[in-house]
């Protein structure tokens, strides 16, 4: 056990030494691996964030009821209370024209233009939040919207369910596209590592022949290349994580200020722990597999007699 362990440790240290002996080409190939892994990793993180964003939307599903201009705030309050009694409604909020104007001024940046208005043209708005079981069923929701829209005080009832449906369908498509990209780039990483291993084998062919001459098994020769491939994939994966993290912190501030303009508290999350581990370990796994295949193909060419 001790012998086995020291032997593997020696090989690992040796593989690290090989990488540090050619720092330029090692950094180059690890960077290529990192970029190839960072792209699908970053896209997955972006998708995660978009999913989180849309689920927040669905959670806050609300029907906006724009009341007719002649309806006063007092009448609107009575209407609010009557809708509140409806079996499908969880909560109704009332926004007075003054509140709406204040909000509009603070967010639109049109403060000066709005100040010049002599009267407030905005109607009273009721925000009706349907109960969760209604919000989850598009048919029931449509019926409710229809019902509320027919109330005589209501001029316009609006619920943007269609765009969420379309966005969800689009996200499904994009997710599949990202999987395809991940597969292609994973294959790219496989080939990049395979190529560096092939070069390493060619550079060390004399060493391989000598090790075989003094009784080194194929497994012994193979081991250092397997470690080298695995290490490259691992370091590439870690660097990819770093790239994703930097990228997200770079666009995080503008994203939250943009989303706050839409009145949504939304912060960008970089990759979570589990997907991060998955990214790094798949890098290492691809590296190991690639080295295994490459060594299998090339090692037999370097028998001592040839």
């Amino acid at each position, binding site marked *: 056990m*001790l*012998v*086995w362990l*020291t*032997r593997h440790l*020696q090989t690992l240290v040796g593989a690290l030494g090989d990488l540090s002996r050619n720092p330029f080409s090692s950094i180059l190939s690890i960077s290529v691996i990192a970029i190839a892994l960072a792209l699908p990793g970053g896209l997955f993180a972006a998708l995660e964030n978009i999913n989180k964003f849309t689920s927040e939307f669905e959670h806050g599903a609300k029907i906006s009821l724009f009341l007719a201009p002649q309806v006063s705030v007092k009448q609107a309050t009575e209407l609010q209370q009557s809708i509140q009694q409806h079996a499908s409604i969880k909560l109704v909020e009332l926004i007075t024209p003054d509140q709406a104007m204040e909000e509009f001024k603070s967010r639109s940046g049109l403060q000066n233009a709005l100040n010049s208005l002599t009267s407030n043209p905005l109607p009273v708005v009721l925000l009706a939040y349907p109960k969760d079981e209604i919000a989850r069923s598009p048919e029931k929701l449509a019926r409710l919207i229809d019902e509320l829209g027919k109330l005589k005080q209501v001029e316009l009832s609006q619920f943007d369910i269609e765009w969420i449906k379309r966005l969800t369908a689009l996200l499904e498509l994009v997710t599949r596209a990202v999987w395809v990209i991940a597969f292609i780039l994973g294959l790219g990483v496989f080939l990049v590592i395979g190529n560096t291993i092939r070069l390493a084998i060619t550079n060390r062919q*004399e*060493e391989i*022949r*000598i*090790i*075989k*001459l*003094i*009784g*080194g*098994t*194929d497994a*012994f020769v193979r081991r250092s290349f397997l470690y080298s491939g695995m290490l490259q994939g691992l370091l590439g994966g870690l660097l990819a994580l770093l790239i994703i993290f930097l990228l997200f912190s770079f666009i995080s501030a503008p994203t939250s200020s943009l989303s706050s303009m839409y009145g949504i508290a939304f912060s960008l999350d970089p990759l979570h722990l589990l997907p991060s581990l998955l990214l790094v370990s798949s890098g290492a796994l691809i590296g190991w597999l690639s080295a295994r295949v490459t060594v299998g193909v090339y090692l037999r060419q370097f*028998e*001592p*007699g040839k």
Partner: protein
Amino acid sequence: MLIEFSNVSKRYPEGHEALRDISFVIEKGEMVFLAGHSGAGKSTLLRLVTLIEHATRGQVIVNGQNLGRLKRRKIPYFRRQVGMVFQDHKLLHNLSVFDNVALPLIVSGFHPRDLRRRVHAALDKVGLLNRDRAKPITLSGGEQQRVGIARAVVNRPSLLVADEPTGNLDAGLSDEIFDLFHDFNYHGVTVLVATHDLRHIERLGKRSLTLSDGRMVQQANTAA
């Protein structure tokens, strides 16, 4: 007996017939010279003994193993029983002298605790104990060959095989190398050395096999 060749021929794929119908026996504990001009087949014969090549016809038995029947994955374990010395040393120049000599122990999974002692013993034997941290490239040709010999014996093989070990060395250094082989033989190691230098054969008075154009032309015992 340690090595037995029975009607062995070797033809290379390009058609060159390197060995023709060779038969001989080397007993355990013997020291035998393999003589002949360059191109006579000495190297090919040693390549058959160390399984770098396989015989085209006939049977080669080393240490009780029929080499024609040895499976590919068993070859490394067979080679660990044979110490090999080469004309061009075949040292790894990115490793220190110590690491070069330790390599056969490392590849065979030798316990790290005893490794240092074994390597130092082998280096001491060839008189290079004080150079263990040097890189081979900084050593003279004779010293490099002695590192090669230390590497060949560190595993304590029962058979030591050398192909023109003094091919690039002057007479004085050659004598030192052959005296080392003689000494290993004295301690019980079977030694088979190929050389075109007849002077050593006469000086050490050992049996010699002479090859010419792939045929065994003489099996002489000069020890008498």
